[in-house]
C-alpha cells in the first residue's frame, strides 16, 4: 500500500481537513511530516493522526491548547503500553515458577 502522501493527497484523503488547517497542524508540530526536497511527505500514521485531530477539533470542539495536551497524553500512553508489552514478553520467557510468583504479586492490591 502507498505510504507516501503529498500535501494535495492528504487534502484529498482526509476530506474534512482544509489546507490552512493542515498547514497549521504542521506549523505547531501536531503532525510531523518528512521534509524532503519536493515538499512535505506524509505517511499513513500521519493520516490516522490527522483523522484523530479532525475528530477532536471538529466533533469534540477541542481548542488548540487542548489538542496539544490530548495528543501528548495519547503519545505517552502509546509509549507506556509498548513498555508494558515488552515487559509482558520478557515475563513470558521466564521459568514457570517465576511467572507464577509475578502473577501472584500482581493479584495483590
Amino acid at each position, binding site marked *: 500500500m502507498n505510504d507516501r502522501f503529498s500535501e494535495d493527497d492528504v487534502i484529498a484523503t482526509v476530506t474534512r481537513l482544509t489546507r490552512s488547517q493542515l498547514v497549521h497542524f*504542521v*506549523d*505547531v*508540530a*501536531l503532525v*510531523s511530516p518528512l*521534509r524532503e526536497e519536493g515538499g512535505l511527505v506524509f505517511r*499513513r*500514521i500521519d*493520516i*490516522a*493522526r490527522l*483523522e*484523530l485531530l479532525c*475528530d477532536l477539533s471538529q*466533533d*469534540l*470542539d477541542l481548542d*488548540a*491548547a487542548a*489538542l*496539544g*495536551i490530548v*495528543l*501528548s497524553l*495519547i*503519545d*505517552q*500512553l*502509546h*509509549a507506556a*503500553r*509498548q*513498555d508494558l*508489552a*515488552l*515487559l509482558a514478553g*520478557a515475563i513470558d520467557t521466564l521459568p514457570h515458577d517465576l511467572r507464577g510468583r509475578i502473577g501472584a504479586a500482581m493479584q*495483590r*492490591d
Partner: protein
Amino acid sequence: MNSNPYEILGLTASATPAEIKKAHRKLVRSSHPDLHPDDPGAEDRFKAISAAHDLLKDPETRARYDAGEIDGLGAERPQRQYYRDFADQPDDRYRQRRGSGQTVDPADIFADILRSRARASGGGGFAGDGYAMAGADARYSLEVPFLDAVRGAETRITLPDGQNLAVKIPQGTDDGQTLRLRGKGTPGMGGGPAGDALVTVRVRPHSVFERVGDDILLTLPITFDEAILGGKVTVPTIDGPVGLTIPPGASSGRILRLRGRGVVRAGQDAKGDQKVELKVVVPRDIDPGLRDFLTEWRKDHASDPRADLMTGAAA
C-alpha cells in the same frame, strides 16, 4: 445491528440539532477508538455513532430518513485506520520517549523500574512511585525575516499552549537550519530531564538582498551617465549603506564585489562578500539636447556590440 440513528445516539425523533450535536459529542468521547485504545468494541460503536450522526446532522438526509425514503444504515463509510493502530509501529515518530526510533534495550527499562522501586520503598505498581522518564523533543518551525537571519536576532515562538519560548537566532542562520534549544522540549516525568526544542528556521526572502552561500547578491540601478563617466554611489548592505565607486565605462551585468560585506556565520571568521550587479537605467524622457548630441555622436562612432554574439556559439 440497530439501524435506528436516533436510538444509536440515545435520542428520540423529535431531537433538536443542538441535542443531536451534544449526544454525538458525548458518545465520541466515550467510544473513540483512539481515546479508548483497550476497548475492542470501541471501533464498532464509533462507526455506528458516526454513521448515525452523518445522517442526522444534515437536515436534508434527516428529513429523507424521517419520511422513510432511506434507511438508517446510510452510506458505507470508507475503511479507516485509527491512530492506535500505529501505536506499536517501531518507527513511530510521535512516541514520547527519548530514543524512539532506535532500538530500545529492554535492560534499560528494567533498570528504570528497579531504580524506581528501590526509591519508592515498598510502594506497589509502577505508576506514581517515581518512575522517571525524560521528556520528548518538541519540534517547531519558525519564519524569520531575512535580515534577522543574516544578522542574528532574538525572537519568541508562541507555543500551542499559549506560552512562549525565547529563541536566539545565531548570525548567519540559513534557510532550513534547525536550532536545538536544550531542555526546552516536553518536561520529563518523575524528575526525568526535559526534552529539547528543535526549531526549524524558514528564512523569509528579501525584496532586495539574495543570499547565495555566504555571499549576498544585489542588483543596483545606475544612471547611464554614471555608467559612462563612473562615480561614487551609495549601496545598501545587510549592515547598512556603504559607498561604492563605479568605474567609468561600466555595462549592465557587471558585478562589483564588496569584500567582507556578506554573511558572517556565528563562530566563524570567514566572511562572505556582497556582489553588486549593475543595471543601467535610461531616462524615460530624453531631452532635446541629449538627443541632438547622440545623433551627432552616432555618425562617427559606429560600433556593433552584437557583431561577435554568435561567434563560437554551439549550433
